[in-house]
């Protein structure tokens, strides 16, 4: 009897143990991983990502509300000298006035096999750098110590951000092979995000719902003569959707000639905020289909209202088109006028920066200012003209509707065929 129970217990224990064999823990690098000389599936690889796991959660704090916290754990194997740069990591963060982000690194260790034994070198603060790139962006960088051919480096980084408009894009593939890539999002019911998947490798998706609670403490002072402070705690229950994206044995994506942008084909998942649904507030839509995306962009102060401004150029435009009757002539005249009047300052985008009026006066503007101005002028000249949102090659091709699908605007005229 006892032995049967023992066997049953062992069986269950083993079963349980096996099921969790994939449980990845930082700090547990195996000798086999260190001994590996080349990647089993890609012998030309200079390095490989053995394990990459990311988790994005929403943490609530009374002062700040919901903050997005993304934690990423990575284990990288370096095969050759040419792969040394993979032992450096750089994470960009926003440091504009509002919505500052912060990045912190931890558990950064280099593992080497020395005389059959595992030797660990920890990253100290002198290997961590914080660079203020410019007014809006900073970069936290680390350079792992004691890296040699055969080393395995591990580190974790956490990004805290109040910019919940989109989750950071998670690339399953990169330019070296990736053995295991896992991305888990824990999203409270108040937010609805549209996941956009890209690439030829489709990750395995599993969804689980959890129950969470937020406690809100509030103070209340009562009484006239003697003030009494009562503390009350409100508990708010909400459900959280936990979605796991898992992909394994991903081949390296290398640059190839005659490909517009290799990122368009590299497997990734990105999430864009579609709507928010807070209790006691109306539902706010952000972008769910191309129609909504276009509407949202149009009603933005830097787009629609700018397109509708005409007073600043009316007199000058009249002078340009007087006497012209044929459509082609009018189009050419207006186009040449804008080209010669306002010079591009090399900034892309579909939102005006200083506005069309200032751009016209200063004679320099960004893509939006110049092309919205052009569309407005063509309209005033009696043509059926509209702005057109487009995406440059570097911006990639978006399969699902989202505001980031576009980064440029041009003007188009519908002409009548005679």
């Amino acid at each position, binding site marked *: 009897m006892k032995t049967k129970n023992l066997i049953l217990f062992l069986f269950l224990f083993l079963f349980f143990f096996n099921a969790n064999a994939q449980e990845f823990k930082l700090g547990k690098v195996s000798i086999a991983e260190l001994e590996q000389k080349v990647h089993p599936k890609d012998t*030309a690889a200079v390095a490989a990502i053995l394990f990459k796991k990311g988790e994005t959660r929403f943490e609530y704090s009374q002062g700040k509300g919901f903050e997005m916290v993304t934690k990423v754990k990575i284990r990288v194997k370096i095969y050759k*000298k*040419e792969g*040394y740069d993979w*032992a*450096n990591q750089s994470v960009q963060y926003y440091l504009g006035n509002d919505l500052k982000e912060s990045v912190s690194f931890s558990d950064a260790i*280099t593992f080497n096999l020395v005389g059959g034994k595992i030797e660990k*070198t920890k990253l100290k603060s*002198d*290997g961590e*750098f914080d*660079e*203020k*790139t*410019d*007014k809006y962006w900073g970069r936290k*960088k680390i*350079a792992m*110590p*004691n*890296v*040699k*051919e055969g080393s395995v480096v591990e580190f974790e980084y956490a990004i805290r951000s109040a910019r919940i408009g989109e989750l950071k894009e998670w690339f399953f593939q990169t330019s070296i092979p990736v053995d295991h890539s896992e991305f888990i999002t824990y999203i409270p019911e108040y937010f609805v995000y549209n996941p956009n998947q890209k690439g030829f490798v489709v990750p395995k998706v599993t969804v689980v719902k959890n129950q969470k609670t937020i406690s809100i403490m509030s103070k209340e002072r009562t009484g006239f003569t003697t003030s009494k402070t009562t503390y009350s705690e409100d508990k708010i229950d909400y459900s959280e959707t936990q979605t796991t994206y898992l992909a394994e044995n991903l081949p390296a994506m*290398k640059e190839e000639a005659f490909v517009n942008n290799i990122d368009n084909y590299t497997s990734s998942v990105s999430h864009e905020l579609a709507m928010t649904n807070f209790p006691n507030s109306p539902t706010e839509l952000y972008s769910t289909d191309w129609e909504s995306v276009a509407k949202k962009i149009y009603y933005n102060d830097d787009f629609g209202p700018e397109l509708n401004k005409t007073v600043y150029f009316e007199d000058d435009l009249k002078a340009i088109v007087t006497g012209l009757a044929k459509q082609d002539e009018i189009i050419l005249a207006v186009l040449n006028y804008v080209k010669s009047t306002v*010079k*591009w*300052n*090399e900034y892309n985008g579909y939102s005006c920066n200083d506005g069309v009026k200032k751009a016209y006066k*200063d*004679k*320099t503007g960004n893509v939006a200012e110049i092309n919205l101005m052009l569309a407005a002028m063509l309209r005033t000249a009696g043509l059926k003209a509209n702005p057109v949102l487009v995406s440059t090659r570097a911006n990639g091709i978006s399969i699902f509707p989202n505001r980031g699908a576009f980064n440029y605007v041009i003007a188009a005229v519908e002409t009548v065929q005679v």
Partner: protein
Amino acid sequence: MSYKFVSVISIVFLFTTTLLFAQKSEYNTLTISDSLKENANAVVRLNQIDIVIASQRSMNIKNKRVVTVLNEKGLDAVEAYENYDKSGPVKSILATVYDAFGKEIKKIKRSDFRDQSAVSGSTLFSESRYIYLDYTPIQYPFTVVFESETETSNTAFIPQWMPLNDYFVSVEKSILNVSCPSSLGFKYKGFNFSNFNIKKTVDTSTQLSYTALKVFAQKEETASPSISTLFPRVMLGLELFHLEGVDGNAKTWAEFGKWYSEKILTGTTDLPEVTKAKIKVLVGAETDPIKKAQIIYKYVQEKSRYISVQVGIGGWKPMLASDVDRLGYGDCKALSNYTKALLNAVDVPSYNTVLYGNPRKRDIETDFVSMQGNHMILAIPNQDKYVFLECTSQVDPFGYQGTFTDDRDVLVIKPDGGEIVRTKIYEDSGNTQISKGTYSISENGDLSGKIGIVSEGSQYNQKFHNDKFSATEIDKFYKDYWSTINNLKIKKITFKNDSDKISFTENAEISAVNYGNISANKMMFVVNVFNPLTQSVKRIRNRKNPLEIQRGSVDIDEIEIALPANFSIEFLPGNVELNSKFGEYKTEIVKKDNNNIIYKRKFFLKKGLYTNKEYDEFRLFMEQISRNNNAKIILTKS
């Protein structure tokens, strides 16, 4: 009442309107003389630099630069930027833009300048930043007046005065004013003044001034010496200076080296005992210092990687050897110094060496003592010479300098002083590429061939990375290398890198369909398959600059060619022998029998510096070679 009011307002209005548009008639572009506009994309109307050295630890530089940009290509000449860091902040910076008539069109204050970290490609982190003007021109020409003031305690670097620093830019007026107390040993040296209108206007014990007037735009000419040997410049320095918290005092290179050794390098070579013991074991019983150094150099190459981190005096002082040992990375100063520390542990002397690292050779000035250079390597004495080690490379053979640090004057810093030494000169006759191979042409004109190429000397440098290429990179490289062969297919390629002999061998098997052009009953093809000369030397009328061939080389080819059966030779290119002061070129075709010939080629190009008048001779020499390289054989079907 109303009339008086109106007239008062009108008068006030009149006054204000006339004051609103400031006209700087001196910046009117129409007044620029034609001679200054010739060959110019921009004209420096005025560049005035005032350097005031108040003491050994305080220098103030005011810069006023007025540039009229004539077209897009002249934008770079505006140079409205300042580099800065914690010890040398920018006190003020502003720019004003004027249109073609000298009317002000934009004022740009400090907050509108862009402020960025000066981290470039190879640098991981640096405290240096730069502030620059990001201006979109509305129309050309326009004039920018840039004014800045910086202050620094680092008097070890006084910027060189170079009124003309680029091609296709002319200078109307450029002024340098330096004032310095007589106790600091201020010194200066001018270079390349002849043919330029440069005058020294003030020269006292405390003041120095130069003026450059009407410097016409220079055209860029191929194979010219570097700008620093062509254009006028003045180097400035102090005998008593200051660098990041350290005072310095040096009159000669010996003294400078001693200062650098004692004040900057001291204490940077301590190593943990464990490391010293490990190195002693690694070196074992070896007694020859060069052999010991080879073992240690290999150890550093395998253990370390290059990462550039420049922080504070870290910009000038090497990172501690114990830190490099722990981190496994560093920049050129750190890795050279670390290698020195390891060599110390096994009693092999070595010295930090400061120089300019660049394929374009540049010397540390023997006759002017100041902080110069942009790179550091290590020098190991070997009898009466030095072996120089490039400690940032994980792949360079021991002592190989390639084209990055060869044949130039460098500063070797010994504990008792510094000395200027010339690095290894790779003799022309040693920069060889020796090819031996065969190819056959079929009746259809299809080519099939094998070649073995051995590269040594400075030619080794261009090839020895090829064994690290991926299959796609190899394909791309060789299709480009043998670009004159259409339909080229690389069937097989292997490499052998002998880093002891410094010799790299490539063995390739190739094929190409329709290499031989067949028309009617004749076939024609270029005999020289494997060594095409793809650059042409252009004609330059009235060349002004000397001609410089930085490095010489010798290519020797011997190829056996099997001609298709059923064809007979109608025409064989004649043997050619060209001898000139620039080198030799010789081709010879030996007929073994009716279907087999041997093609022999030797091209020896000498390193040299020639006058501008000799350029056309050189062009003709190269043209003859190019024509002969493409010599064709004609076969007739029999």
